[in-house]
């Protein structure tokens, strides 16, 4: 899978669909290697993105005392 603008959640969903294919009746040994390579690339991409993610924290200037 090529790098896209998908969110991590979407990528996880895609990865889960690959994993599900391995357990489905559609599984064939001929396609397994190709699918595995795609899944592995996606998993590496997710892992890299996960480790790099930072939260964007803003303390609001608005006062709530009145």
């Amino acid at each position, binding site marked *: 899978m090529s790098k896209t603008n998908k969110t991590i959640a979407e990528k996880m969903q895609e990865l889960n669909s690959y994993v599900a294919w*391995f357990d489905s009746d559609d599984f064939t040994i001929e396609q397994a290697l190709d699918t*595995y390579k795609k899944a592995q690339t996606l998993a590496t991409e*997710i892992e890299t993105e996960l480790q790099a993610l930072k939260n*964007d924290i803003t303390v*609001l200037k608005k006062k709530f005392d009145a």
Partner: protein
Amino acid sequence: MEKSTIRLPLFSVSDFVAALNQSLEYAYPQVGIEGEVAEFKVNQGKFVFFTLKDASASVGCFMTVWQLRMPIEDGMKVVVTGIPKVTAWGKFSITVQAIRPSGQGNLKRSFELLKAKLAEEGLFVTDRKRILPRIPHSVGVISSTQAAGYADFMKLVNDRWGGIKINVAHVQVQGEGAADQIMRAIDYFNGSSMPPEVLVIIRGGGSADDLSVFNDELLVRAVAGSRIPTLTGIGHETDESLVDLVADVRAVTPSNAAQLLVPDRREIITELRHKQVSMISRVQAAMTTIQTETNRAMSDMYTLLVRRCDMLLAETTQARRLLVAFDPQTVLQKGYAMIRGHLAVGAAVEIETQYKLITAEVTYVKDK
């Protein structure tokens, strides 16, 4: 000698009451009084009257029902904050601005009364609870940024996950005015054009009195009315507030709130690796299955081949036995003889036995 006279100020009654109130206002612009509630009553559903007393004195109190943020009843020890005042008809009273139960027993009693009331309204039912998004993109946090609980929460959220837009409303989380500030923050987030997906209310541990803010009726109703799903992390595991009960999800501590809000990236990375291993295992299992099936097919074929060969061998043996049975030599060995030639009187015929060849002349022929 002329008697000196002191000129006393002369007031009208109204002026006197006004001057008295002015003096009171100057001396005691606001007072806090602790005492026991007696003769508590609500008139016309709007006006609250009660007497605040101790062993040797009592004072009348007045407030509106909207200022009553926690249930109060006779015999309850409370702290009132208010303004002392003499009314136009000369009665001294405290115009109450805030009232809260004092002492753990009274706080607990007030908590139970309000809990029962709100439970009857259905505010705590499970059907009202909404599910939080598994991975929120935006979060509104309502807390004091100076509180230890807030620091614990933020540290854990940052450790566990990233990529979230977090807006923090810094509010007071204990004492007078705290409930109002939290309510304003809830209103602010709910009124936002881009509201966060989750609203988190954070407050670390504290005394029952400190945490009583989260049993404020108006605040509880504001949390219940939030259109943004709410998550609370208030106090320690043993603390339970009405805001906790009404929130969509209740965490037992601020740290636990972080755990419920976002997944742990380390767990997901481990999960990713497990997924890869499971895919490899699946391929290996498929290959093992194919190999097993191939071996079984080969074995079946060999068994069939051997069986077919055995059948052919048995048929050949049977044929050979028949051939042997039909061999003329076998008949001669049994003592029989074969005669060749023309069977007519005077003709010569050849007789063959097991060991001899004989030529003989036919002397008599007769049909049987």
